[in-house]
């Protein structure tokens, strides 16, 4: 298939979308985005309106500027995480036949405050910086083992051989999930994230599959608690009541989806940059103390997640007319490259100070796993730079990328002198 053939059909433009805020961009299949994501994102920052409507993928808003993203992320009354309003969804579910298989919900990411908080609070301690710092050494050990396997070979396909196994193993270990089902999990997540126009019935089926794979482990941990997240979640209360199997399935679906794909793509973008930037590699090898600052600056320069929102009411947002029920994408990768906030945004400056990025989003839905992600990225860069000599891209096999809600690296071939 050619690139052009994969671009989604354009839908007709609603009357309230003016020429000034119309821009044709396919979040999933834009050829430039797929060829070199952040180069295309810089182009959008420079040439697209800060808030625009694209006719692709059913038609939706794109928030490009930092101000637009920051305000929308924090204004949960205007920009809802409930893609179907909660009451409406409950009404639909109530009409299902009683023996129909249950549909798990990715709580709390698809809830708005105040209900959001009731489901989020039990998870916060589990993912707090202190809890995560306590498992840093075990993450480092796992990273070292995985990297050492490829070092003598002088080359690797980074995504499949390092970026995928490391965070997924860490996360499944934390949860207490069996590792032998890894390929099955990955296939489900990939299908979930790559679907261009999510088909609601397929999406629900997939979440049911995710829950079904976990169910044995959930029940087993209820009866035989161990030192893992699932066991911990059986002990907590939601809004004053004990958790149920339904709650655990909902949490499982959320953590499963959020934990398997995101940090892996963060590693892909960061290591691609390191592979193309020998000077940066040398600087960090000589001064490992700078790696944590580099981790932050790489997150800013290569922000890669695009959380969706539902416009909750007719409104004017930063001078743009929006209608209730429309979809808006928080295009965080562009927000973190906004020159208003970050002078010379395309320059990776590990000594940049004084401007915090929003790679983990802003507002109440700030990435719950951000502290885990930071530690994993930091440890991965440290161990990779310590164990692998100067590495570069394999010129014969250039990297490949994908668009979507998690802009990612499909393939990243590295070579070095072994």
């Amino acid at each position, binding site marked *: 298939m050619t690139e052009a053939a994969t671009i989604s059909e354009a839908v007709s433009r609603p009357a309230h979308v003016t020429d000034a805020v119309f821009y044709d961009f396919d979040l999933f299949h834009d050829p430039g985005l797929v060829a070199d994501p952040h180069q295309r994102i810089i182009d959008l920052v420079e040439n697209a309106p800060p808030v625009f409507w694209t006719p692709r993928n059913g038609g939706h808003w794109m928030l490009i500027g930092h101000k637009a993203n920051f305000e929308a992320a924090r204004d949960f009354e205007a920009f809802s995480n409930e893609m179907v309003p909660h009451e409406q969804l409950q009404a639909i579910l109530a009409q299902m036949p009683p023996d129909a298989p249950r549909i798990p919900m990715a709580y709390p990411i698809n809830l708005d405050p105040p209900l959001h908080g009731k489901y989020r609070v039990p998870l916060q301690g589990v993912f707090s*910086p202190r809890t995560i710092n306590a498992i840093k050494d075990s993450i480092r050990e796992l990273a070292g083992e995985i990297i050492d396997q490829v070092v003598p070979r002088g080359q690797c396909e980074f995504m499949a051989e390092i970026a995928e196994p490391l965070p997924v193993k860490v996360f499944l270990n934390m949860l207490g999930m069996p590792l032998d089902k890894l390929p099955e999990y990955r296939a489900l997540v990939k299908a979930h994230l790559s679907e261009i126009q999510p088909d609601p019935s397929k999406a629900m089926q997939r979440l049911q599959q995710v829950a079904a794979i976990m169910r044995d482990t959930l029940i087993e941990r209820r009866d035989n608690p161990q030192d893992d997240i699932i066991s911990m979640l059986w002990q907590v209360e939601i809004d004053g009541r004990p958790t149920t199997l339904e709650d655990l399935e909902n949490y499982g679906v959320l953590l499963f989806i959020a934990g398997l794909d995101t940090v892996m793509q963060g590693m892909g973008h960061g290591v691609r940059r390191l592979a193309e930037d020998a000077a940066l590699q040398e600087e960090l090898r000589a001064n490992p103390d700078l790696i944590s600052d580099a981790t932050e600056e790489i997150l800013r320069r290569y922000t890669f997640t695009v959380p969706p929102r539902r416009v909750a009411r007719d409104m004017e947002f930063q001078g743009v007319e929006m209608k209730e029920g429309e979809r808006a994408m928080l295009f965080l990768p562009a927000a973190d490259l906004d020159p208003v906030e970050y002078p010379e945004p395309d320059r990776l400056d590990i000594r940049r100070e004084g*401007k915090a990025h*929003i790679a*983990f989003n802003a*507002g109440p839905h*700030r990435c719950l796993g951000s502290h885990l992600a930071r530690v994993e990225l930091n440890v991965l860069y440290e161990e990779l730079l310590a164990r692998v000599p100067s590495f570069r891209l394999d010129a014969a096999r250039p990297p490949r990328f994908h668009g979507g809600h998690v802009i990612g690296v499909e393939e990243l071939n590295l070579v070095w002198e072994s």
Partner: protein
Amino acid sequence: MKVRIDKSACVGNARCWAVSEELFPLDDDGYIQVEEFDVPPGMEELARRGARACPERVIEIVEDDA
């Protein structure tokens, strides 16, 4: 110098804490524990850096009148 934090708007990024655990203590959930405090002498620059590190922009530095 004073630090004033809009505690209810903290979303748990913990970037201030990464700058100074002493100035910006967290609760068990990883959210900021303090609302307003005087910066001990010699820690002014850390306080400023901690405030700038907040992605949510809820930490305000109140400089002493000159």
